[in-house]
């Protein structure tokens, strides 16, 4: 096994992460099904919860938290930069074709 994989591998923490992921999923379902927020706010909240869940999966299950910092930063920054570029390509245009009447794009 390579050096980077040598870390505190107590299995308990993985069960905690799994439990946290299930709880976050339950929160998402309740928020989504009860329509707690109006759609744009809902989209933002659900995306924030999804980013937290993905960070837990990448950090613990995929062990990126325990890799060398060079690998961590290179992967996270490059992929994030690509998504930011995609965002600027897509969404200004999506907003441009929005029907303006009430200023609400999402139903």
């Amino acid at each position, binding site marked *: 096994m390579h050096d980077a*994989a040598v870390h505190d591998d107590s299995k308990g923490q993985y069960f905690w992460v*799994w439990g946290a992921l299930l709880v976050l999923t339950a929160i998402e379902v309740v928020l989504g099904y009860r329509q707690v927020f109006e759609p744009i706010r809902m989209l933002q909240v*659900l995306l924030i919860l999804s980013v937290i869940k993905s960070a837990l*999966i990448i950090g613990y299950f995929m062990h990126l938290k325990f*890799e060398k910092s060079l*690998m961590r930063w290179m992967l996270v920054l490059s992929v994030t930069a690509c998504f930011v570029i995609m965002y600027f390509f897509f969404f200004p245009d999506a907003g441009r074709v929005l029907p303006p009447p009430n200023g609400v*794009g*999402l139903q």
Partner: protein
Amino acid sequence: MADAAIQHNAVEHGLTGEYEAPLFGAYSKKVGMWLFLASDSLTFGALLFAFSYNRIYTTPWPTPFHVASITNATIMTACLLSSSLTMVMGVFAAQRGDRTWTRYWLLATMAFGTAFIVLHGMEWTKLIGEGLTIPGFPRPATAATGELADVSKNVPQFPATFFGLTAMHMLHVTIGVIYLGVVAFRKWFLPVLAVLWIGGYFLIPSDNIFHYGIHALGLALVVSAVILFLKPKDYDAHDVEVSGLYWHFVDLVWMFIFPLVYLMSTKIN
């Protein structure tokens, strides 16, 4: 004499040893898988952005997912999350050299993955039966008059983006289950794959999309056989860890598909 010459050349070229330390402190297979996953995340990113783009500019956006669909998708999510936990346990078993438990944990992961695929297939079949289709899909008799027939006619971008995104993910899960099967059981997995392919083809009715989709297993059978026979090897802890990275990525992608596709399109009665 030869050793002395090699040593001389090494000194002359400023080389300090036989191997250079890996830049990322990880073995090459692992770095390769991470780079593949980074590129694959952009594929899914593009599909998710396309779905969101359509979601924003299309008014009214269809909301076809009743409580039964949301319940089904929630169970699917729990299956994937649980499969990630069993995968982690499988990696630990492989690292301590416990081959029996590595197989058990990988088998548990495959079972959760298969449950996900079956539940997703049932969901697709239900939606198609209610009329949510795209051109080229086989349609059962109920599709023409179903509840969602108007959605397919009036908002074709909904079924197009929904099926495009979820089909891509389902394909990844299927490949993941086969990948784990090959790592865990090697050549013994090939007959299982063949039985699933041929059995699935004859058991699934011809008006169901999966009657044709099951051929993905035939293609996977050929690819797996080529890999296993051309490069036979006993997969070690590194291989299990790398296959685990792929599996967790599949789980990760679903964490975005589930809220964006399902929860943002719930039907409130």
